[in-house]
């Protein structure tokens, strides 16, 4: 009995794409039955919507420039978590992150993927990004109050860079 319940929970964690989850809001976005497009939206992302404020007037769309400090680090995180077979078959995905300004630290990560991916690995990926990926931050004006800046970058493209 216990084994059955455990097995059910385990399989649910790994394969369920539209099930309640503590980290992500998971939604299959595709209208086309032959296509997979799954949104793994970070449940905390709405907390980080407010941008920084500046001491002088500034055009907000160009107020903050962020640049990933190390693409190699991104690639190495992916390679550590996913097998080369998995990375070979995954299509390009998108990570939407909220970055703390001015520190450049990632505080929230959502994913949009065209493949079904092991949910536990995806959670580890989010954890690793938030712990180990940093952005170089350039500001167009002096900051008055810290805030957050949303940006995206591609994931599962490390094989293209090899």
């Amino acid at each position, binding site marked *: 009995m216990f084994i059955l319940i455990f097995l059910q929970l385990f399989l649910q964690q790994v394969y369920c794409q539209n099930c309640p989850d503590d980290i992500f809001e998971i939604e299959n*976005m595709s209208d086309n039955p032959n296509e997979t497009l799954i*949104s793994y*939206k970070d449940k905390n*992302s709405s907390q*980080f*919507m407010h*941008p920084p404020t500046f001491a*002088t*007037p*500034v*055009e*907000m*769309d*160009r*107020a903050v*420039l*962020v*640049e*990933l400090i190390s*693409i190699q680090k991104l690639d190495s995180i992916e390679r550590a978590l996913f097998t080369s077979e998995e990375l070979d078959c995954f299509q*390009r995905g*998108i990570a*939407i992150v*909220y970055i703390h300004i001015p520190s450049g630290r990632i505080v929230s990560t*959502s994913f*949009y993927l065209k493949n079904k991916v092991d949910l536990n690995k995806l959670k580890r990926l989010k954890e690793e990004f938030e712990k180990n990926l940093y*952005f170089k931050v*350039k500001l*167009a*004006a002096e900051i008055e109050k810290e805030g*957050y*800046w*949303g*940006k*995206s*970058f*591609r994931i599962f493209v490390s094989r293209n*860079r090899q």
Partner: protein
Amino acid sequence: MDDYVRFYCDDYGSSGGVYAPPPSTGGGSIPGYTPPSFPSPGTSGGSTSSGESGGSSYSGGTSYYGGAGSAGGGDPSLGGSVGGGGSSSDNSTPEFPKGGLDIIPRPEYMRDPQPEVHPLIRSHTLSTYQLDLLLKAFNDLQVEGCLQKALYDALIERNVKLDFGMMTGTAPAAYDPRTKRIVFNDDSNISSANLKEELFHAWQDVYYQGGIEQYGKDAQGNKLPGYVNVEFEAKVFSDVFNNPNFTCCYAFRPGADNLSESLYREYTNWVYDIQEKKIPMQDGDYQYWLNLFNQHSPEYSSSMLESLSTPRAIRELLAQSDCE
């Protein structure tokens, strides 16, 4: 004054730098000689707000900005020390060339007009350090991608000459189609990312008949019809022809201006699909995003112009480029 000063420094042949004045105190003054005055801090030398000055060099071209010992011209406490040869620390009288100091340069020492620093620079008011950043940004832009190179080449082919300077403003960089001047608001913003968008505006200015001043702002600062078209095309250029390893995007940002994350994600996908050559940049898609940009970007929102509703300036660059 600059020509006069340079003329004598070259004559000394000491360090390739700019003339340094003889000590104002101590031994040996020259009867009847009044030392030339020097620029006030920040006017022409290598001092910068960050204290980086003189001695930085630009290896390309025939610039007189390069080489060791260029005059700092700034506050020595900020690192803008006056470089160059000829200054004396032992109170001795510096030796001047035979014939003394001429007030009017002799014809044989007259230089050609100010040598060209860069084919796209008509004039500038940048410090040596800032100029180095600008030249580096030009170089970075050319190697970033084929269309960026095409933009650079197209401007040179059209013999576009621009003024460059610094100005405090609300944008990190700005192009003024009236004066053909690009300004940066801070040293840290003199980068290829900022330069790219402003150079693209310069390209639009020569490509669209009558220039883009007619789509700018009126004397009261009101945006004229077509303003949003011109700005959106520049944003799309920056987004699609970005270094693929960089983050996206300039036209839309998640969480900004009531834009839903799903729309942002859709735009990001469109940009990446064009970058990866999965889809071409089609007019219908472009107009769909232009409309949304007009709705969600109050800073740029204006009446739209049908004649500017397709990315013609981008397409012309693509046609001229060697991008596959």
